[in-house]
C-alpha cells in the first residue's frame, strides 16, 4: 500500500499528454487527462462486462435443464466465482470510477483531478489485475471455485498443491483492485473537497458529486478491512498460518466479518453514484428542479454512515447470536429511510413534469422501478425469520441482481447515453437506444423475477443441478439471460457507429444545467479556459436563474436553458 505515498509525494505534476480531443491515440497512452482516463475506464470495464456476461451465458445454459450436463461441476463453480468477481471488481467499480473521473472535474469546475498521475496509475492497474484474474483459467486446477466471497475453509482447499493456484491469483487480483480503488478514492475525495470552482459551496454542488464523494468515503473506510482479511487469507492459503482455518484453531466467521464489513458497504459504492445519476437525469428530462435537493444530497452521507453498521445481515445464518441478529436487523431496516427520501424526491421531481422519454430517461426510469422492487425484497431479507428461510437460495440471487443489473447497470447505461454527446462530441441513435432499453428491461425482469419464486421454493444458489420442480422458473430465467446477452449488441452497435459516424453534438444537446454543459462537446483540453464562478444551485429548471456569474449578463443563454 505504500507506493501511494511515494506517488503522492512526487514533486512535479506532469503535463497531460498533449493533443487535441480528436486525437484517438491518446486513449491508448498513459494519459493524465481525467477525460481520457474516464473513457479508458469505461471502455475497459465494458470489455470485462462482456467477458463476465459470456460466463453468465454458460451458467444460464447449464441451468436450463435440471441435470449438470453442459459443464463439469468444478467448471460450474469456477464460472460463477469468476462471473461474480469480474462483474463487481472489473466492471461495476471501474465503470463507475470512469464516470466519476470524467464528470466530477467538469461538474465542479476544475481543470483536472487533484492527482492526475496517480489517477493514471490507478486506471492502468485495472487491466493488470484483470489479466491476473483471467490467468487463473490457465493455471492447473483452474480458477477459484469458492464464490465471489471466498469464504474459508472452502477457499483454503488447494487440491493441486501449487503455490500459484486459482485462489491465489484471485486474492492477488482483488488486493490489487483494492489498492487501485484506494488511490482512486483518495484522488476523488481530495478533488471534490479542495478543487471546486469559486462559489460552488457544497450546497451548490451537483448531487452526482455528492453521491460519488459518499461512495468513495465508503471505499476509504471499508476496503482496508477487506484488505486485512485478504492478507490473512493469503497467508493461510500459501504459508500455512491458521487465521481462518478451523482445522488449526482459526476462526472462519471472523473472515466473514472482514469480508462483509467491506462488501456490504460496497453495494452502496455501486448504488450511490447511480442514485446520483438518477438525480441528475430526472430534472433534465422532466424539466423541473430536483425536489428536495439538500435532502437528496445529504441522504447519500446518511447512507454512507448507516452502511457501516449493517454488514451482519449477510451472516444471519452464520451462527450469529440472537442479540446481534436483532441489532443488525434494525439497522438494516433503517437504511430504507434515507433511501426512501431519495425515491420520494425523484418521484416528486418527475411528477407533473414535461417528461421526455428519450433513451437516458427510459433507462433511469426503468432503473428506478427495478430498484424499488429490489428494495422491497431487501427489506424482506433484512427480517431475520424470513432470511433464515431463504438465505443461500435464489431469492437472494434475485434480490441482488435486481439491484446490480436492474438498477445499477441500467443507471450506468442511462449515464453513458446522457453524457455520450459530451464525451464523444457525437449524438447516438435514439432508435437503437430505445431497442436496447426494451431488451434490457424485459431481459432483467425475465431473468431475475423467476429467481424469487424458485428461491422461495427452496432452490439453493451455486448449484449446477437442481430438483426438476424448479425447472419452469429456470427456463424462464435462462431465456431472460440470453435476452440480456443479446441486448448488448444494439448498444455496442450504437456506441461504435455513433462515435464514428454520428451527428456532431452541440455543447448542450439536452438543454441541461451544469458546468459540464457550458463547455464544448467534447470539452477542450483542461476543460475551462477561465474557471467559472458559480452563483446558484445546479437544478434551476424553469427558474430562469443564471448558474455562473458571467451568465448574469447574457440573459439569452439563461432563457434558453429554462
Amino acid at each position, binding site marked *: *500500500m*505504500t507506493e*501511494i*505515498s*511515494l506517488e*503522492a*509525494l512526487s*514533486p512535479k*505534476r506532469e503535463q497531460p499528454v498533449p493533443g487535441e480531443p480528436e486525437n484517438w491515440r491518446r486513449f491508448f497512452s498513459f494519459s493524465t487527462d481525467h477525460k481520457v482516463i474516464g473513457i479508458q475506464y469505461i471502455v475497459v470495464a465494458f470489455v470485462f462486462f462482456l467477458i463476465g456476461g459470456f460466463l453468465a451465458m454458460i451458467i444460464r445454459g447449464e441451468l436450463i435443464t435440471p441435470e449438470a450436463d453442459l459443464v463439469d461441476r468444478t467448471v460450474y463453480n469456477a464460472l460463477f466465482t469468476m462471473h461474480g468477481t469480474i462483474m463487481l471488481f472489473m466492471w461495476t467499480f471501474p465503470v463507475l470510477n470512469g464516470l466519476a473521473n470524467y464528470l466530477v472535474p467538469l461538474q465542479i469546475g476544475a481543470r483536472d483531478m*487533484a*492527482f492526475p498521475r496517480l489517477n493514471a496509475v490507478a486506471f492502468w492497474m485495472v487491466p493488470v489485475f484483470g489479466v491476473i484474474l483471467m490467468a487463473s483459467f490457465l493455471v492447473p486446477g483452474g480458477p477459484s471455485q469458492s464464490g465471489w466471497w471466498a469464504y474459508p475453509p472452502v477457499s483454503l482447499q488447494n487440491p493441486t498443491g501449487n503455490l500459484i493456484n486459482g485462489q491465489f491469483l484471485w486474492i492477488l487480483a482483488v488486493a490489487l483492485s483494492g489498492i487501485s480503488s*484506494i488511490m482512486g*478514492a*483518495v484522488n476523488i*475525495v*481530495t478533488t471534490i*473537497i*479542495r*478543487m471546486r470552482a*469559486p462559489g460552488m459551496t457544497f450546497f451548490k454542488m451537483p448531487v452526482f458529486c455528492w453521491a460519488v464523494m459518499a461512495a468513495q468515503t465508503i471505499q*476509504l*473506510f*471499508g*476496503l*482496508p*478491512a477487506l*484488505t*486485512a*482479511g485478504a*492478507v*490473512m487469507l493469503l*497467508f493461510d492459503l500459501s*504459508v*500455512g*498460518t*491458521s*487465521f481462518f482455518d478451523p482445522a*488449526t*484453531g*482459526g*476462526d472462519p466467521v*471472523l473472515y466473514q466479518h*472482514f469480508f462483509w*464489513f467491506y462488501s456490504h458497504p460496497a453495494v452502496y459504492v455501486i448504488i450511490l453514484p447511480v442514485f446520483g445519476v438518477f438525480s441528475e437525469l430526472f430534472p433534465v428530462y422532466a424539466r423541473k428542479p430536483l425536489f428536495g435537493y439538500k435532502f437528496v444530497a445529504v441522504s447519500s452521507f446518511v447512507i454512507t454512515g448507516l452502511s457501516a453498521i449493517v454488514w451482519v445481515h449477510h451472516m444471519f445464518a452464520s451462527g450469529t447470536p440472537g442479540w446481534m441478529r436483532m441489532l443488525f436487523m434494525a439497522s438494516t431496516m433503517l437504511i430504507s429511510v434515507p433511501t426512501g427520501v431519495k425515491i420520494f424526491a425523484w418521484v416528486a421531481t418527475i411528477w407533473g413534469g414535461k417528461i421526455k422519454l428519450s433513451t437516458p430517461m427510459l433507462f433511469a426510469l426503468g432503473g428506478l422501478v427495478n430498484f424499488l422492487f429490489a428494495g422491497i425484497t431487501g427489506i424482506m431479507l433484512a427480517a431475520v425469520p424470513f432470511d433464515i428461510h431463504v438465505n443461500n437460495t435464489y431469492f437472494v440471487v434475485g434480490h441482488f441482481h435486481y439491484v446490480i443489473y436492474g438498477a445499477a447497470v441500467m443507471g450506468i447505461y442511462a449515464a453513458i447515453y446522457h453524457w455520450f454527446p459530451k464525451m464523444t462530441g457525437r449524438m447516438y441513435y435514439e432508435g437503437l437506444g430505445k431497442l436496447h432499453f426494451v431488451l434490457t428491461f424485459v431481459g432483467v425482469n425475465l431473468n431475475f423475477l423467476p429467481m424469487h419464486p424458485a428461491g422461495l421454493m427452496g432452490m439453493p444458489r451455486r448449484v449446477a443441478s437442481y430438483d426438476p420442480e424448479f425447472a419452469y422458473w429456470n427456463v424462464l430465467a435462462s431465456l431472460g439471460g440470453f435476452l440480456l446477452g443479446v441486448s448488448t449488441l444494439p448498444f455496442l452497435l450504437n456506441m461504435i457507429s455513433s462515435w464514428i459516424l454520428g451527428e456532431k453534438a452541440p*455543447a448542450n444537446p439536452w438543454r441541461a444545467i451544469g458546468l459540464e454543459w*457550458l*463547455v*464544448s462537446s467534447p470539452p477542450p483540453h483542461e476543460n*475551462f*479556459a*477561465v*474557471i*467559472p*464562478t458559480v452563483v446558484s444551485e445546479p437544478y434551476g429548471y424553469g427558474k430562469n436563474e443564471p448558474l455562473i*456569474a*458571467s*451568465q448574469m*449578463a*447574457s440573459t439569452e*443563454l439563461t432563457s434558453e436553458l429554462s
Partner: protein
Amino acid sequence: MSSVNLDQSLNSAATVHAADHHEEGEHRLFGFIVFLLSESVIFLSFFVGYIVYKTSATDWLPAGVEGLEVREPFINTIVLVSSSFVIYIAERYLHKENLWGFRAFWLLTMAMGSFFLYGQAVEWMGLDFGFTDGLFGGTFYLLTGFHGLHVLTGVLLQGIMLGRSFIPGNYDDGEVGVAATSLFWHFVDVIWIILFILIYVWQ
C-alpha cells in the same frame, strides 16, 4: 467556451497558474492525510482480529512458549517514540530555514528508526515460535511485520527527503514531502504504542 461570454475580470490566466503550484502541495498533504486515515483501518482490523483471537482462543500460546520478553521491545519502544520528537525538531529547523539543523535531526530520526528495525530483527531471530505456530504466532508476526514494513517505508521516505534537501532552492518555501513523511512517522509511532500495549503489555 465559445458559447459563453466569460467574465474576464475574474482572474488572469497567469495568476491562476502561480496559485496552482502552492495549492497543489496542499492538495497532496490533504490527500496523504486521507490516505493515512484509510490505512489506519487496516491496522484497526488487525487489532480487532487480534483481540477476538486472544479472547476466544482455547490454546493461545503454542506448546513450549511462555510468553514474550518485554525488556528489549520496551527499549525499542522508547527509541521509536522519542524519534517522533526528534523529527519534530528537524521540521522546526526547516521552518527556520536552517538546512543543516534539519539534516542533522532528520538523520538522527533515520538512525533511530533503523535501530528499531534492527532491534525488531534481533527479537524475531531469537524467538522459538514461527509464523505458522497457531494464532499466537500468526498474529504476532502479522502485526509486528506489517508495522515493521511501515517503519522501513518511513525510513526510506526520510532518505528520499534528505536527498532532495540537497537540490538547491528545493526547500526554500517549506516542503510538503517533509511534512507528509513526518506525519507518516507520527502515525507509525502511534500504531506501535497500541501494538505494544496489545501484544507485550496485555499478555
